[in-house]
């Protein structure tokens, strides 16, 4: 019998702690598959900071470092400068990367640090229980924005890919979503291209993944996918924001 699909060796064989309907699982699989397909699993070192993905060290089947909230790009910088021939990636959420860790991500990009970042944007703080993130949409309710986010009080949600695309050292910036099989395939292609940028020594790369958080959005898994399509995708347009041809 021919095996048409099997679990990637890029992930360990354990059950994850992620909630039902959460898209972290899909993104983990894509990252694991790409690490294997590029043949870098044995030289990969991943960094997962505080947030829902803090336990990622139990899931990715490669050397891992757990990092302080927002600091993964700095930790990854330390690793990459010591081992320039290894493959180094960070896996960060939006509370982590777009709030407490803005300095670290901007300056890793600014230095053209040869690391790759997977950025999960689900418009909310998941791990701490649904507080407002910098990426929370206008009108979206959160436990610290019980009446919904207003522009007057909290500003408009931050667009990380657009911002990082203005930085010369960011060689690859793309926003993807994992809401349907077609987009999942596109997401995998983007992750692969992003990782290859690092292997070719071309600079910093990031893939922003629009993701769901059914638990903290108060929606079922199918409702959450629909909410992402109707609310997040219009505000956070998918697409490539920067690739090496555009880097002078």
């Amino acid at each position, binding site marked *: 019998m021919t095996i048409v699909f099997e679990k990637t060796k890029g992930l360990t064989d354990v059950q994850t702690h992620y909630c039902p309907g959460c898209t972290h699982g899909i993104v983990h699989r894509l990252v694991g598959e790409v690490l294997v397909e590029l043949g870098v699993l044995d030289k990969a070192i991943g960094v997962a900071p505080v947030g829902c993905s803090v336990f990622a060290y139990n899931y990715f089947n490669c050397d891992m*470092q757990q990092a302080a909230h927002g600091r993964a790009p700095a930790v990854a910088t*330390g690793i990459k*400068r010591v081992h320039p021939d290894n493959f180094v990636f960070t896996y960060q959420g939006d509370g982590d990367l777009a709030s407490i860790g803005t300095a670290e991500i901007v300056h890793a990009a600014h230095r053209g640090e040869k690391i790759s970042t997977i950025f999960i944007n689900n418009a909310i703080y998941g791990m701490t229980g649904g507080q407002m993130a910098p990426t929370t949409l206008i009108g979206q309710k959160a436990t610290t924005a019980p009446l919904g986010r207003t522009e007057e009080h909290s500003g408009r949600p931050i667009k990380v890919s657009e911002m990082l695309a203005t930085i010369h050292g960011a060689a690859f910036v793309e926003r993807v979503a994992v809401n349907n099989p077609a987009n999942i395939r596109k997401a995998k292609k983007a992750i692969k291209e992003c990782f290859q940028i690092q292997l070719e020594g071309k600079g910093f790369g990031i893939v922003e993944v629009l993701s769901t958080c059914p638990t903290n959005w108060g929606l079922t898994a199918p409702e959450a996918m629909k909410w992402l399509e109707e609310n997040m995708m219009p505000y956070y347009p998918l697409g490539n924001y920067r690739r090496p041809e555009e880097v002078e």
Partner: protein
Amino acid sequence: MTKVLMKGNEAIGAAAIQAGCKYFFGYPITPQSELPEYMSRELPKVGGVFLQAESEVAAINMVYGAAGAGARVMTSSSSPGMALKQEGISYIAGAELPCLLVNIMRGGPGLGSIQPSQTDYFQATRGGGNGDYRMVVFAPANVQELVDLIIEGFDLADQYRNPVMVLGDGMIGQMMEPVEFKTPTKRDLPEKDWATVGTGDKRKPNIINSLYIAAEDLEAHNIRLQAKYKKMQETECRVESYNIEDADVVIAAYGTTSRIAKTAIAKLEKEGYKVGLIRPITLWPYPFDEFKKINPNCKGILTVEMNNGQMIDDVKIAVEGKFPVSFYGRSGGMVPTPDAIIEHVKKIYGGDK
């Protein structure tokens, strides 16, 4: 090897490179900036990397990453910058990573001043970051000792898988003195088989981590850490003392302040006073036992610091109420004079002899 004249901050860099440190992550701040400047010049020559981080917070996290990846690595800063590094230091202690930290202290609180000070005693010895952790804190009193302790500090860090701090004041960092770079005694250091260097498809993944979500796991981790700290207390405590078995008054002072105390003691001896000195070289572990050797008829202990009284807490713990403990300190970058120390010693005597 011959002696060379070097500024404290630059001597730290030279000693670190001699100790095999190849990675330095830092951020400019007075009065320690000569050190990152020196490293930016010298590390590339030995195939190392100097990186100026975007902040002290980023710098210490780069140290975390590099240490977790098995490198000999260091960072340095001065008081307000060291405050910013505390988050990372706590993670480094929790994840049991070896690295060397240098704090060239200046006056505080807040932005304070850029003048020499000893205001970070509490921060260094009580764990400035969150959680129950400890680290060896060296307090060198001259540039030669600074160099020796830097070299040894890296070995201690590797031996215990723990951060080691060298705590100097602005004066130690800025002064020039002749130094000799001696080859340290070889220690049997453990292999860094825990480091994240890629599995090479030969072993299970290594994980650098300070998170233990189950209470019983975290307690077990803490018990292991405390056992390690106990071993450090038993074997790594260092102190210099002078004439304490025979003294009427004993001065407790460290770093630059201990040198001023020595000048005061020499003058007092000429006038017939019997004054001893306890100079802790490690501020943690603190040399509590040394105080047990003090002359039982001693009239009192004078703690001298360039702050408003921090080490005095440890002195009081050490003497267990057997002697009165008094304090003389200057702060804000002011430096105690030998004459002022002499006056305070005479007060303990009950006036001029």
